[in-house]
């Protein structure tokens, strides 16, 4: 018999250690052995360029087989015999294309990143739990479970996703799981709700209450209203100007009586919000009276973060009673923006302020809080945050009647000034947005549309609607709280129950328009109403895009699809157009040299366009930035100053200055020489511009670089430094990392004709040719004709060519 040698232990141990090392993530290096294995590793995530074959889905859980056809751009066209099977198939195919994305977003929303990525995400997770996304999603799910139609759709969708997950082996698992070394977990209705809440958070998360409270105290009522008025410059409200009695509360912001230095510490440092208030959208509808075809045209382009995998996924969903095409959000059922044979709809963010902070009086031991002079028991709960390779973290979250206390003695977050304040946010209320979209998908006429949006609560959206019978409409829909004057613009006094909510503005009083005489409706995150609306509200509105769209829609009477493309791609910043003549008038030509004079003369002919090859846009941008900096310099002394007054506020100050020469700065009352500021800013701008010009980047497109980032922020999976036209304030609202995330134009008629494109591709798989194949065309302003099939036979015939 042979003897076992002890020396064999040495190579054995080396091998075991090596396997262990190559099996797990070490610092930022992914598990290399798993990842580079040719049989199941990263290389197997590659997809060849062949056209996708028709899928006949016969999974367990389906009532009948579902056919899924793919067109040339890999858009699935789902044909099911019933709505449950349709949502099942939607879940299945979405998981096949985007599983990691939807799983990751739901985990990020729930505050579970430490569980998959480790302790470095603990702060992020704690913040997510404390602002209450997970508990809000759970509350909403409870509400949704009472609505049989929505519950059926969500449940079928979940089953579809899980049917796909069950079939996955390691080889086909999305690459991100392999790199971050974790596994997809079973999908659930809660995860679907979390994705919707995450969108609500993105769209309504911005607030500047703390900063504005400081500014109000520092500037005083009068100066505050000069610098931060609710209405400034020209507006095109969603519901048009009604010319009724002006509501003084909407015009002048009174300083709340409690807001003084006893209430708030004077030197509170405020960090800018991590949310982007400029995320916006455009959408408009034109009735047949203004189109060549005599049928209405509807356009919608939501501006969201530019990310890979793309935010949207295109598809057609059909079953008896439904035939809808558009974009869906991976992780949620139904089409969110789209059209069917009869109607089309678009959405833009309402941009209202629905997020408030109440400063509480809490005992040092966090046991009691004061309300109306009485001390009451402060509720608390403990949440478990699981961590990868570490024991769970337990966080205590306190809760006042207004909402959770996000920042406290144990958690400073990035907003120390909000310590011991309760967050009241519409996102926390149970809501069922899915029902609206499920109903919109099969709506046939205006009454169906109204019924679909009637219970839509959060985030407040502007719905635009067009029907082939030539009805057009717009509605600023959602739960908008009834408020006292100025309520919500500043930190609220949490010790008074009077400031707790007093219900909502009635649905039939919400701003809206039906078949206006202008024959068009539009929204671009502008004020929903004029100053004559009887209820007080406030928000973070943008007016410039709406004004420009209105100008363009009013200028024509026979629109076709090409005209609409031109409007969506319009690169004019109307503010620049308004400001330029005024600024040019204030330049002191005598103090300019020859080259600066030459620049001025070319600017004279500029039309405010931020086109790719425009050579003036960059110079104007620098010029205006310098003027702003000089004008608002003294506001920088406030540690709570985070947001410059609106550009139109400054423009109006220049316009209305005494004799066109001076304006008085609000704090020191210093007399500023306008001509000196504007001329100095120009000279400085020309110098900066020439510095850039020598590197040949003075064309706007060459300077204006955008990044389309992978959700994990891994550069290797992103598309960066793409030269682009457009400007955040132009209708083509492209910015460094956000922009038109879906451009759609639908011309209704006997058969809808539609065009669209989004920055990305259908597949979320980095190894797929469909990962980012639309991106280049998107930056060039191209559109794809959308293949809307009227019948299954048509789908079959056209996809199997």
């Amino acid at each position, binding site marked *: *018999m*042979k*003897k*076992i*040698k002890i*020396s*064999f232990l040495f*190579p*054995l141990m*080396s*091998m075991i250690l*090596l*396997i262990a090392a*190559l*099996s797990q993530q070490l610092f930022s*290096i*992914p598990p*290399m*052995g*798993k*990842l*580079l*294995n*040719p*049989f*199941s*590793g*990263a*290389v*197997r*995530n*590659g*997809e*060849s*360029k062949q056209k996708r074959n028709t899928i006949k889905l016969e999974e367990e859980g389906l009532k009948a087989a579902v056919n899924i056809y793919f067109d040339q751009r890999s858009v699935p066209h789902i044909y099911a015999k019933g709505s449950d099977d349709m949502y099942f198939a939607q879940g299945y195919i979405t998981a096949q294309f985007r599983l990691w994305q939807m799983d990751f977003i739901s985990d990020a929303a729930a505050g579970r990143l430490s569980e998959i990525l480790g302790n470095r995400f603990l702060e992020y997770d704690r913040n997510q739990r404390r602002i209450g996304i997970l508990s809000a999603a759970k509350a909403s799910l409870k509400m949704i479970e009472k609505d049989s139609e929505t519950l059926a759709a969500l449940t079928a969708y979940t089953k579809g996703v899980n049917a796909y997950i069950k079939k996955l*082996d*390691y*080889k086909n698992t999305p*690459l991100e799981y392999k*790199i971050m070394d974790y596994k997809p977990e079973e999908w659930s209705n809660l995860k679907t709700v979390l994705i919707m809440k995450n969108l609500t958070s993105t769209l309504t998360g911005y607030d500047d209450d703390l900063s504005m409270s400081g500014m109000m105290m520092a500037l005083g009522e009068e100066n505050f209203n000069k610098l931060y008025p609710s209405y400034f410059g020209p507006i095109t409200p969603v519901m048009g100007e009604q010319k009724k009695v002006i509501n003084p509360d909407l015009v002048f912001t009174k300083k709340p009586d409690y807001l003084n230095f006893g209430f708030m510490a004077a030197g509170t440092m405020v960090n800018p919000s991590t949310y982007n208030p400029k995320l916006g959208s455009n959408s408009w509808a034109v009735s047949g009276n203004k189109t060549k075809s005599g049928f209405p045209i509807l356009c919608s382009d939501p501006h969201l973060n530019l990310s890979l995998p793309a935010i949207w996924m295109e598809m057609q969903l059909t079953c008896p009673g439904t035939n809808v095409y558009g974009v869906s959000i991976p992780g949620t059922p139904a089409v969110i923006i789209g059209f069917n044979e009869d109607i089309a709809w678009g959405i833009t963010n309402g941009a209202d302020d629905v997020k408030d902070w109440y400063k509480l009086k809490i005992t040092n031991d966090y046991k009691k809080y004061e309300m109306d002079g009485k001390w009451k028991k402060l509720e608390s709960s403990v949440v478990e945050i699981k961590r990868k390779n570490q024991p769970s973290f337990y966080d205590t979250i306190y809760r006042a009647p207004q909402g959770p206390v996000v920042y406290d003695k144990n958690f400073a977050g990035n907003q120390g000034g909000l310590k011991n304040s309760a967050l009241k946010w519409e996102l926390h209320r149970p809501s069922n947005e899915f029902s609206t979209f499920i109903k919109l998908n099969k709506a046939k006429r205006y009454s169906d549309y109204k019924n679909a949006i009637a219970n839509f609560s959060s985030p407040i959206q502007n719905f635009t609607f067009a029907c082939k019978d030539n009805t057009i409409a717009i509605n600023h829909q959602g739960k908008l709280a009834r408020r006292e004057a100025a309520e919500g613009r500043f930190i609220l006094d949490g010790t008074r129950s009077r400031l707790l909510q007093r219900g909502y503005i009635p649905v039939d009083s919400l701003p809206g328009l039906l078949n206006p005489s202008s024959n068009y409706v539009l929204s671009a995150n502008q004020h929903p109403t004029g100053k004559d609306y009887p209820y007080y509200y406030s928000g973070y509105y943008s007016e410039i895009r709406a004004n420009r769209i209105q100008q363009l829609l009013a200028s024509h009477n026979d629109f076709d699809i090409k005209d609409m493309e031109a409007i969506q791609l319009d690169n004019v910043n109307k503010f620049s157009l308004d400001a330029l003549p005024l600024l040019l008038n204030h330049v002191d030509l005598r103090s300019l040299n020859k080259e600066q004079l030459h620049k001025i003369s070319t600017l004279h002919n500029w039309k405010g366009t931020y086109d790719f090859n425009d050579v003036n846009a960059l110079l104007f941008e620098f010029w205006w930035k310098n003027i702003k900096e000089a004008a608002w310099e003294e506001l920088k002394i406030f540690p709570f100053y985070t947001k410059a007054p609106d550009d139109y506020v400054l423009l109006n100050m220049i316009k209305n200055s005494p004799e066109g020469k001076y304006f008085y700065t609000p704090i020191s009352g210093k007399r500023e020489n306008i001509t000196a500021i504007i001329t100095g800013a120009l000279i400085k701008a020309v110098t900066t511009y020439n510095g850039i010009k020598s590197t040949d980047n003075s064309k706007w497109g060459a300077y204006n670089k955008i990044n389309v980032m992978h959700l994990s922020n*891994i*550069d*290797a*999976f992103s598309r960066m430094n793409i030269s682009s036209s457009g400007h955040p304030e132009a209708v083509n609202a492209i910015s460094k990392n956000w922009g038109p995330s879906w451009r759609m134009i639908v011309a209704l008629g006997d058969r809808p004709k539609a065009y669209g494109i989004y920055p990305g591709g259908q597949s979320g*798989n*980095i*190894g*797929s*040719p469909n990962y980012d194949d639309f991106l280049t065309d998107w930056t060039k302003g191209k559109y794809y004709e959308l293949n809307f099939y009227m019948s299954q036979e048509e789908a079959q015939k056209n996809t199997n060519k």
Partner: protein
Amino acid sequence: MNKNLINNLITICISIVLLFLSAILIENPWWFFVIPVFIWGIIVNRLRWKVSLFSIGFLSGFLVWLFGNIYFDFVLDGHVLNRIAMLISLPKFVLMLLTGLIGGILTGLSLFTGGSLFEVRELNGLKKYDAI
């Protein structure tokens, strides 16, 4: 032909077949292939073939992992490995060599470990091990 050379070739071929078979039959865990290779090492040892087990194992694993990755990278043309190379900041050919290296070292080690499990008395007297 030299008998030694033939034995070496047979060892390589069987190792490669084992690497393929284990990958096809069992996907999880990713390192499963070391077990059959380990057993094959024991057998080679008992056959008393004069084979440099680590080098031969290394060569088999290196070839299979390198060409496996090259093959799928080409056939699926997904450019996934380009992205992975970017992710870990290495040129792609270095990444390819790295895959070969991982496959090679593990296969080499497992074949060698299998081979050194039992003591073998060399009949030719080239090496003298104590026998019981």
